[in-house]
């Protein structure tokens, strides 16, 4: 924000230089602030550092009180791939994330649009229900849903429990958080755009797919990004539904089980932990702006 928001009707003010004592005080405050920031930054980065160091140790060293690996065992990362089916876990995670995100975007956009830009009688009540669904812990519905998937599987003869489908399918029928976010965003689209399209003879559906979808690209990108992240990190529901079928474990479930499969080897466990963290961090650096914008969007519009 510029330092000269001059109200109308006054002559332009020139700011005089603050006296030396004030300048010195401000300088000291800035130095203190930076010192604190640097200390905090070190504290925040330290865990990463130690995890990396441990990932490069031998197993016995990891159990000892040495902090620095001696020698550097780079092949731990290769060993992780031999000890556990990391690639299969990654494939499962990708299947879950991609299919869920796809369904989520396709199903949430129309709902958000109907809640934002169409006027109908139950609109506010429906939005309230979406908000309530947002606040509900998943544990409230998890038992009957598990029963439902089990019974459905027995009836049809397809094993839903033990597959990724109970995780993917609900996303194709709308997701409360995405609906909420998109609706907030749609509210900010000026009426003029939509009216212009209507005058040109566009039906509502066409407006949605052409004008609105294009205008809402940043919001849709943010929603897709969040959904991808959420499904990548998801643990509780995947544990429940794929827990007994190791061939369908996503990365997080596999990582949590990594120790019991292969008798805690902390060096390999830390190496595996790093491998699981890496894709997300890489994605962040590639799409930094979309990340920060998306997060800000949720907070400011929320």
């Amino acid at each position, binding site marked *: 924000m510029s330092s000269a928001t001059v109200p109308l009707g006054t002559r332009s003010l020139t700011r005089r230089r603050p006296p030396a004592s004030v300048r010195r005080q401000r300088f000291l405050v800035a130095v203190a602030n930076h010192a604190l920031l640097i200390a905090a930054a070190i504290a925040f980065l330290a865990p990463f550092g130690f995890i990396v160091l441990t990932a490069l140790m031998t*197993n*016995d060293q990891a*159990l000892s009180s040495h902090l620095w690996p001696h020698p550097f065992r780079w092949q731990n990362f290769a060993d992780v791939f031999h000890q556990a089916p990391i690639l299969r876990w990654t494939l499962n995670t990708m*299947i879950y994330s*991609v*299919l869920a995100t*796809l*369904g989520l975007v*396709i199903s949430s956009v129309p709902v958000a649009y109907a809640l934002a830009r169409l006027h109908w009688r139950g609109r506010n009540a429906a939005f309230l229900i979406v908000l309530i669904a947002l606040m509900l812990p998943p544990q409230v519905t998890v038992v009957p849903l598990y029963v439902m*998937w*089990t019974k459905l*599987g*027995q009836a049809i003869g397809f*094993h*839903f*429990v*033990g*597959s*990724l489908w109970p995780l993917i399918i609900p996303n194709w029928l709308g997701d409360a958080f995405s609906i909420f976010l998109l609706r907030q965003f749609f509210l900010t689209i000026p009426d003029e755009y939509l009216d212009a399209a209507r005058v040109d003879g566009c039906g509502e559906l*066409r407006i949605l*797919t*052409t004008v609105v*979808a*294009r205008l809402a690209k940043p919001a849709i990108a943010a929603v897709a990004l969040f959904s991808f992240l959420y499904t990548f990190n998801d643990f509780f529901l995947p544990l429940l539904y794929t*827990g*007994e*079928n*190791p*061939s*369908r474990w996503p990365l997080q479930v596999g990582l949590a089980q990594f120790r*019991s*499969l292969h*008798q*805690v*080897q902390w060096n390999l466990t830390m190496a595996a932990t790093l491998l699981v963290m890496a894709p997300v961090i890489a994605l962040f650096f590639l799409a930094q702006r979309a990340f920060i914008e998306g997060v800000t969007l949720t907070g400011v519009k929320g």
Partner: protein
Amino acid sequence: MRRVTGSLLAALVLGAVLAAAITMGSAHAGARSAKKTTLTVWVGWSARELRVFKGVVADYQKKHPELNIKVVGSINDTKITNAIRSGNAPDVVSSFTSSMVGVYCGTGAWINLQPYLSKDHVSLNQFPKTTLYYTQFKGKRCALPLLADSYGLYYNKTLFAKAGISSPPKTFSELTADAKKLTQRSGNKIKVIGYDPYWNFYSGNFTDMTNYAPLFGAQYYDSKGKAVLASRYAWSKLLRWQKSLIDYYGYSNVVRFQAGLGDEFSASNAFEIGKIAMMMDGEWRVAFIKAEHPTLNYGTAPMPVDDAHKSWYGAGAVNGTIIGIPKGGHNVDQAWELVRWLTTNDHALAKFSNGIRNVPSTRSSGHSKELKPDPRFATFVRIFNNPHSATAPITGAGSAWNTLVGRFTVKWQAGKVKSLHKGLVTLDKQIDKLNAQQGGGGVP
């Protein structure tokens, strides 16, 4: 418009392809090849022990070329229950938790084997009495024992010699005295511990105290199925002994010591690398030591017993692996043939016992010529057959009551319980209420 529909179509096609890929993948996994019948067997073993099991199964496979037997390891009870619930169950399943038989038999999750036993004239007399107890619930027999476990004392002979101890302790007071002599410390930090009685440490010290109960003659339930930990004096004796030893080391010193130890089933097992002088463990440890630290100078003996009952020396805790057929399976007859062979065939049991050093679970296989003698392993066979050895009671609530006992014992050893008697009275009430609420009263 065209661009949007275009990219949308592309995304949908990608999604459909992925979806097809997975569905086909999982459907293929369940398909049976036209000629052979596939039998899936789930077991709890992993790594080396799993390989031994697969070797035993291979012998059966050779005799039955029409079958294709698939063995899956690292199974636990949660996976078993979930699989049976979702209709995804294998043909044969086995569990390390014999106490779960209350749930498996009580709910019909594992099918009743009695018709098959009668049809094939399988005599139950060949199984030792304790194994018969933990493979049935309220008269329904849904499991058979597949090798058994007994718990005894492992002691490091080198450390014994250094401390001037000539023979393993026979009573708990001897155990305590020896443990104190064998412990090496530098300041507060424990370097070598004589005997670690910490509840939840390794496999010897289950928090529900089932491994120590026979050594004190302690009973969990009376004949009516009510919990009696408060009224049976043996429990207080056991708990007070345990806490006094923990307090000798210092509770947080023990916790710190344990946090830096290697995993129980790895080559850095604390006993195997000499950080623990005496340890209660199951008979399988003999095979692990042979594979990982063959030069370790150690001995085995029965666990010491309560000073007041010296004649009980030689007894120990006993349980075992159970094997059964889950409901909803397709190839029950072939599954039963495999189960019968695994549990009654002398060659199978002897070969398996040699490989993973578990106790043979039938009388005849216990005398089989194929068994490789091992004096340190023979201790455990004797413990298994000792008349005072006992196993944990089974209820229809599965292992939930064990969790309740465990909650109490870990609090007790941390010094959080003010009055032991009052605490046990409360614990008894909790157990009774749990059994009443969740089905199946306690079985003595």
